């Protein structure tokens, strides 16, 4: 299985461990992630400023992948969501397609048959399958109690994304359970992490993630698992800010899903970039050695 790997902006800047662990996990399943050369921002960040610009940026990425002949895989749900929405628009709206192609022709590109766009978890679930994932689990993480955080864009808007049910999502639960860890339910499971408003109102953004952390602490989770680099950054890096600002103690390690799976597959923490995480993951690692 070969895919065009779309980096996005958050991962190379702040969350390289996610890419590292995803590549390790992908190798186990014979998935080749080929860098999408020349790719730009998916366009999501421009949505608020200008919809057409955001659409054109996404379309350029889609045309690059079309040229390579591979479907796009990304680790970032915002990139996944935005590219998926633009792809849907290009397939269903001829007027939009004409506008986009008119702009793309200026750089000698064109979109004819936009490639599929997948989030890495979608590849794991649909192209690899839970059975095959289970067969690679060497050390079931039976000791771990994990709180899953789905995030927003991986499931919403559901009519355009068509991946799981946003009112009662289950896919991450299934992916966590296959590693042998116990998946916990907590009150604020479906609440947004608050990261998108960090640049506009930092205090508000921290209030939201604090509410989530409180709820996760209440169920005594050993770790939080995320599938979004931006959510991860908010839970992990800003957990330290919250502890300081509110004089509260959480110290709940935050793992990328691929790090959790990698641990279960027997990779060394270093191979998964676990020491890059800001909240120390040592308590989990020592619990796993017992």
């Amino acid at each position, binding site marked *: 299985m070969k895919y065009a790997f779309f*980096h996005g*902006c958050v991962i*190379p*800047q702040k969350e*390289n*461990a996610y*890419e*590292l662990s995803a*590549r390790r996990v992908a190798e186990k399943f014979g998935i080749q992630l080929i*860098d*999408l*050369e*020349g*790719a*730009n*921002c998916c366009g999501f*960040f*421009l*949505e*608020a*400023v*200008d*919809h*057409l*610009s955001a659409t*054109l*940026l996404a379309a*350029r990425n889609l045309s690059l992948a079309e040229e390579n002949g591979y479907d796009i895989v990304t680790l970032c749900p915002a990139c996944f969501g935005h590219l998926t929405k633009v792809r849907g628009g290009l397939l269903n709206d001829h007027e939009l397609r004409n506008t986009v192609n008119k*702009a*793309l022709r*200026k*750089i000698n590109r064109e979109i004819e048959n936009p490639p599929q766009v997948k989030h890495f978890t979608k590849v794991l679930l649909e192209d690899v399958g839970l059975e095959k994932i289970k067969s690679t689990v060497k050390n079931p993480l039976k000791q771990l109690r994990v709180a899953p955080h789905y995030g*927003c*864009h991986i499931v*919403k*808007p*559901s009519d355009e994304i068509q991946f799981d049910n*946003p*009112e009662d999502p289950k896919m991450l639960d299934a992916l966590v359970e296959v590693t042998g860890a116990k998946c916990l339910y907590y009150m604020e499971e479906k*609440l*947004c992490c*608050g990261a*998108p*408003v960090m*640049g*506009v*109102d930092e205090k*508000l953004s921290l*209030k*939201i993630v604090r*509410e989530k952390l409180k709820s996760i602490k209440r169920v005594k989770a050993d770790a939080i698992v995320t599938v979004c680099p931006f959510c991860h950054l908010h839970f992990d890096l800003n957990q330290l800010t919250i502890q300081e600002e509110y004089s509260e103690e959480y110290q709940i390690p935050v793992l990328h899903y691929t790090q959790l799976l990698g641990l279960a597959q027997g990779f060394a923490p270093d191979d998964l*970039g676990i020491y*890059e995480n800001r909240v120390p993951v040592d308590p989990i690692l020592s619990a796993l050695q017992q």
Partner: protein
Amino acid sequence: MLKYYGSSVLVVVWVGGSGAMEIREPLRTTQLDPKFKFEVAQMPGGESIKYCFQCGKCTATCPIRRFEPAYKPTHIVRATLLGLRETVLTSNIIWLCASCYSCTERCPQGVRLTDVMRAIRNLAVKEGHVHPFYRMQGSAIATLGRIFKEDEFINEMRAGMGLLPIPSVNREEISTILRDIEVNKILTIEKEGE
């Protein structure tokens, strides 16, 4: 709460909140711009605003509203439908939407409110009202093709972890496709002027 006093005066009282977009003065219908709602509806994604029947489910379901009482999506829609053009477009509060799509998922009328909020923001930007954070991000993308600059620091960090350098963006292609869009001219010109 909306009271109707004859044909030319509307009184809109928005209770609660910390001041943003709060109106406690009687509104004269002559102050309203009846075309504003059509302007929003003509923006891509803005079409569905006309289905709103003000049930308030978007506000009830909004994670931002839960922690910031001044943010009420229902009121932003109402103000838009009323034609409070300046109030809406110059308000800081429209920049609080987290684009989480919770409201869009649950709206009983099928209003795609997240997309409507985007349409309203896009209009505000056209009028020159851009939140500084979005201005910063927007001009970075228009000039660099991404929100960050690929530099040696990032690639060294990646090399240290055994990852390949980040693929370079063809910046010329980005500026070519964005060049003819008015908004980006505003963004890049102001960036150069800084």
